[in-house]
């Protein structure tokens, strides 16, 4: 079966390319069922990107949900096997509430998860695949990196109460120094703590400058260990030739009760929001009773719907007007189509149809 790539939409093209990218590195496709136990999602509601879950009662009385997420299902189906790493990718539709319209939306999502004895090798591989995923969609991309371990241990270093960490992270994620100021003064945090939190909102033009700045705020053994891992991962990407594509930005933060190590996001020029998002989520694994580690990412293919969309001048190349023998008409249509034209067979020209030529079967010539 030959598929003409020109008929594929940008999201379909990207899905094909990404599936081949992941399967070529030994990732196996994970196919999840459309409906899952509602309890799985409601127990981990904060992990979900959107707060709405479409639920219904099955014929046997079980409460089910139309999948709002893939990662939770993958973890639910995983087992802790020492020394073993499960490498999976998926291409699924998920159902979430659109923030602007407050109505449910079907979102196509492709991504991968690496679950088990995850070490530096697996983390580097996932980072590489994330960058390659962006690269396969467009050459004009930025890969943003941060590390939850550094943020958490720095908060620990300053004994920042867990009750205000969420608020601080939210302010950091908006790069709002004004709000960090307000939270710090309300909660009597020291000037030094405030200055340190400011570092997470910085816009670093150079990687070296970012690394230097982060090193200066990692004072405890725990934060130094997280910093060491982070700088190794950054050097790995730099050595792999992505220096001009990566950006260190700690305003990229996730919920610290689920995520643990490296976190990342990908942007493509022309798309107004991040198209790729991922990170290490060992804490979610613990919450779900697993002792192993995990890292993964998702690519939001729905964001590509309007990407590089060229307005077509014509709906079809040829309108083929039928009059007479049906077999002759369809034979002519097939022969025109195999010559590379798009052909619309009809008895009369539809209103508003944009076409290059009109052809009458009996005349077999341009009108």
């Amino acid at each position: 079966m030959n598929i003409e790539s020109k008929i594929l939409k940008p999201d379909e093209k990207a899905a094909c390319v990404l599936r081949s990218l992941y399967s070529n590195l030994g990732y196996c496709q994970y196919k999840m069922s459309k409906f899952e136990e509602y309890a799985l999602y409601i127990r981990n509601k904060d992990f979900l990107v959107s707060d709405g879950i479409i639920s219904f009662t099955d014929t046997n009385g079980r409460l089910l949900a139309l999948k709002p997420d893939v990662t939770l299902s993958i973890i639910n189906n995983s087992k802790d096997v020492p020394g073993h790493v499960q490498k999976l990718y998926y291409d699924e539709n998920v159902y979430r509430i659109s923030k602007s319209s407050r109505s449910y939306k079907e979102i196509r999502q492709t991504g991968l998860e690496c679950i088990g004895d995850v070490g530096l090798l697996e983390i580097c591989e996932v980072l590489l695949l994330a960058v390659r995923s962006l690269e396969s969609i467009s050459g004009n991309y930025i890969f943003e990196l941060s590390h939850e371990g550094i943020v958490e241990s720095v908060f620990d270093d300053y004994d920042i109460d867990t009750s205000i960490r969420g608020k601080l992270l939210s302010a950091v994620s908006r790069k709002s120094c004004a709000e960090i100021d307000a939270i710090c003064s309300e909660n009597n945090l020291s000037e030094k703590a405030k200055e340190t939190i400011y570092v997470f909102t910085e816009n670093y033009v150079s990687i070296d400058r970012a690394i230097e700045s982060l090193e200066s705020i990692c004072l405890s053994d725990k934060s130094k260990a997280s910093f060491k891992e982070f700088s190794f991962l950054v050097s790995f990407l730099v050595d792999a030739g992505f220096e001009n594509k990566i950006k260190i930005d700690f305003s990229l933060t996730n919920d610290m009760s689920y995520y643990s190590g490296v976190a990342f996001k990908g942007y493509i020029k022309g798309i107004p929001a991040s198209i790729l998002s991922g990170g290490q989520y060992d804490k979610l694994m613990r919450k779900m009773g697993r002792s192993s580690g995990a890292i993964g990412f998702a690519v939001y293919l729905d964001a590509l719907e309007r990407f590089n969309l060229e307005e077509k001048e014509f709906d079809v190349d040829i309108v083929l007007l039928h009059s007479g023998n049906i077999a002759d008409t369809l034979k002519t249509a097939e022969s025109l189509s195999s010559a590379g034209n798009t052909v619309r067979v009809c008895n009369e020209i539809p209103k508003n149809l944009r076409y290059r030529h009109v052809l009458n079967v009996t005349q077999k010539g341009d009108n």
Partner: protein
Amino acid sequence: MEMLDIALPKGRLGEKVYSMFEKAGFPCPSIREENRKLIFENEELGIRFFWVKPSDVAIYVERGAADIGVAGKDILLEYEPDVYELLDLNIGKCRMAVAAKKDFRDNVNTTLRVATKFSNIAEHFYAEKCRDIDIIHLNGSIEIAPILGLSDVIVDIVETGKTLYENNLEPIETIVPISARLISNKASYQFKNEIIEKIRLGLSEQVGV
């Protein structure tokens, strides 16, 4: 040349904000001309301003139709757009407050009826206090709700408090101080970082940050 799109809030605040952009070295003289145009370009500097309804600025920026913009903190708290809040411009200062009739006494035995345009802010505020409330969403003239018995209190923006006092109401609690903020689309901040940072710096010099 690639343009930087800037959404400004229509009205007095927008005019003040534009003057700040001008002083920061990002003018667009045609904006001062008397006409009904909404979009103005300075091709040389690669910037394009447009006027939008103040409550819509955050939507334009979040969805990337504008790269940056200026929005009130009230709008940012209410709609929670996924944008960077790069600078507090220290203008358009007021506060989000709870107000009630002068003789109001909160009866904790009953659900508190709250009339507001800012449902999300009111919900968050009372959820933190674990107070049971009934939100009555109104689009304007909020002050008359307690007078007509539609609500017990209102949650609204208070600048001088004059409108409240003239309607026999008074502010009873401040929820949050409000001011105008420079916001940026997260993707634009990555790809147009240099010019956005130049603007932020130019504006911050005027607010002493």
